[in-house]
């Protein structure tokens, strides 16, 4: 405001010639500056996929990557997801050094190692899942987060192994388990080994299940194929983000098979909720709260159960569970 009035005052003082000269100068100054490259432009602005609104990227980030206008939930990377879910500085990563081998020497139009390198360059990650322990509102949990930006979130040996190790870690430490899925399915480049990761993770979940520990599965845009048909659908509680597309087979494959058009909202989280496949569709902003409520609810039940059974072991379990219930920030 002040500046504008200053300008006006300046204008009053200078004559018309001077004014034109200064205009020219400022225009030149503007032209000297390179116009924004597409990349810079994209870094600065993001267009909403759904409502086409042009959003200032920083605002979008502050809003958890949810469009403020239409509530469209953008895909986010593993790092952003961790930042949003875990208490600050509470995340401790497990198995950060596991990387894929090339068991089949797979070559399509490109070799598998080259495709991996390309995926890592794009995502900044080594694999499509990041696992570890963290706290959510002070509650300690085992958390795994998939990243669709890395190799389409596909599950190969490493994703399967890291997920299985996380499940076992949660079991050993009696922690609630949370897996955030986002995947195009099994990784074709590792052939049958990728398929077998479905059995590996599901088998680990069987042991975890028998330990009567809580597993919350969160499905995010998009979750398909081998991941959906294994650990993602095995949650005691299954949550999904609004609008996330979730399924076994892809839309195109189904349309080709049944030779008819599918409804527009087919395979969306809301559609799945209607069909009884999910417990809740949870907005990103409420996810932390819902998770901690669910965890506290089940921990309380576990404490009661252990207290009811007597014996020194049960007592120790009760104490441990109560400690977990008390938020230690």
């Amino acid at each position: 405001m002040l500046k504008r009035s200053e300008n006006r005052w300046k204008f009053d003082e200078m004559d018309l010639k001077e004014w034109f000269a200064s205009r020219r100068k400022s225009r030149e100054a503007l032209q000297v500056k390179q116009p924004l490259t597409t990349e810079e432009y994209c870094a600065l602005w993001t267009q909403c996929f759904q409502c086409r609104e042009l959003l200032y990227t920083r605002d979008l980030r502050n809003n958890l990557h949810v469009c403020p206008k239409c509530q469209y939930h953008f895909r986010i990377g593993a790092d952003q997801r961790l930042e949003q879910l875990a208490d600050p500085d509470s995340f401790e990563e497990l198995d950060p050094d596991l990387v894929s081998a090339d068991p089949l020497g797979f070559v399509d139009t490109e070799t598998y190692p080259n495709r991996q390198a390309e995926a890592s360059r794009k995502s900044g990650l080594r694999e499509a899942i990041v696992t570890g322990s963290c706290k959510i509102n002070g509650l300690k949990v085992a958390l795994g987060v998939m990243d669709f930006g890395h190799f389409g979130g596909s599950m190969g040996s490493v994703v399967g192994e890291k997920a299985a190790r996380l499940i076992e870690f949660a079991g050993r430490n009696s922690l609630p388990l949370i897996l955030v899925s986002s995947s195009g399915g099994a990784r074709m480049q590792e052939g049958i080994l990728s398929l077998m990761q479905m059995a590996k993770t599901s088998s680990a979940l069987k042991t975890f299940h028998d330990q009567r520990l809580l597993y919350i599965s969160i499905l995010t845009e998009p979750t398909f194929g081998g991941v959906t048909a294994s650990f993602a659908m095995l949650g005691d509680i299954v949550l999904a983000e609004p609008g996330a597309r979730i399924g076994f087979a892809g839309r195109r494959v189904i349309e080709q098979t049944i030779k008819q058009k599918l409804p527009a909202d087919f395979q969306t989280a809301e559609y799945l909720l209607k069909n009884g496949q999910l417990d809740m569709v949870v907005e990103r902003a409420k996810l932390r709260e819902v998770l901690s409520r669910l965890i506290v609810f089940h921990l309380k039940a576990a404490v009661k159960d252990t207290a009811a059974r007597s014996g020194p072991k049960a007592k120790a379990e009760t104490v441990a569970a109560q400690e977990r219930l008390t938020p230690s920030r």
Partner: protein
Amino acid sequence: MAISDKKSAPLEFEQPLAVLAQQIEALEKQLADNPNPELDADIAHLREQYKHLKRSLYSNLRPIDHLALARHAQRPYTRDYFDRWDDDWMELHGDRQGSDDQAMTCGLLELDEFAVVAVGTQKGRTLRDKQQCNFGMPQPEGYRKALRLFQHAEKFRLPVVTLIDTPGAYPGMTAEEHNQSQAIAMNLRELAGLTVPVVAVVTGEGGSGGALGIGVANRILMLEHSVYSVISPEGCASILWRSAEKVSEACQSMKMTARELLAQGVVDEVIEEPLGGAQHDHEFAARATREAIVRHLRELSSLSPEKLRSDRQGKFRKVGSFMEDKRTESNG
């Protein structure tokens, strides 16, 4: 020796054989009209050639040829095996939740000293059958029917035998609405927890998650010309090569034949087929498969229930190929 096999139309790679068979047949006709010792010798020579050609042809099959054999319309299907194993087997129906998926055939049968629960995907021979069986592609109801039988086996401590021959789980609208993913996932988890022996045999096509849904077993066997893959070769070709014509390359790259999977340590045994493929001799294929299953069941029957479970879980726990790559810089 029956040279021209009416059971099966020649596959693409079998063309040279078919041509030779035609020639022999024509000569035989001539011979019948006017007996001639020279012609007789020619025919004998050609027959010898035919035998050689057949042997060399079938010992040098490309992966895509195995695929063609695995999908052969005259290949023995699950019901053919069950009927030959136990002509008095009892079929059990239904998932108890409103459906009886014909693509998943389940029953009780006896294999030598073992009374087993048998579950298998069924493709269907005639067009009517095929439609009823949905071409061997189970719906979620099929997997839930199988799960019911797995639980039955656990309750009565019966070994489980599964036969896998499916292009995959059905990719349809209602299949999605009825939660195909969850049906398969539940089977993976519950099969992992069984405390009875489980033996799975891939008899034809092992199509992805739809095959694995009844394939979490202590022992995985494969017939010589069967295939087992993470995605159909057609799907793989269209995604990675963006061309439906690259099916052969996809077959090659995915390493999906029985011998390749045995080499990878995923499969425990390859069951030999009659020369030219199981479609030539259902009896042979059924006998060889039965013999292998019984042998593995005998081995497994010495394990305790807890050991059976941990053996199966351990088998899948160690599948995978990865490296530990330590590095100093922090994770991006």
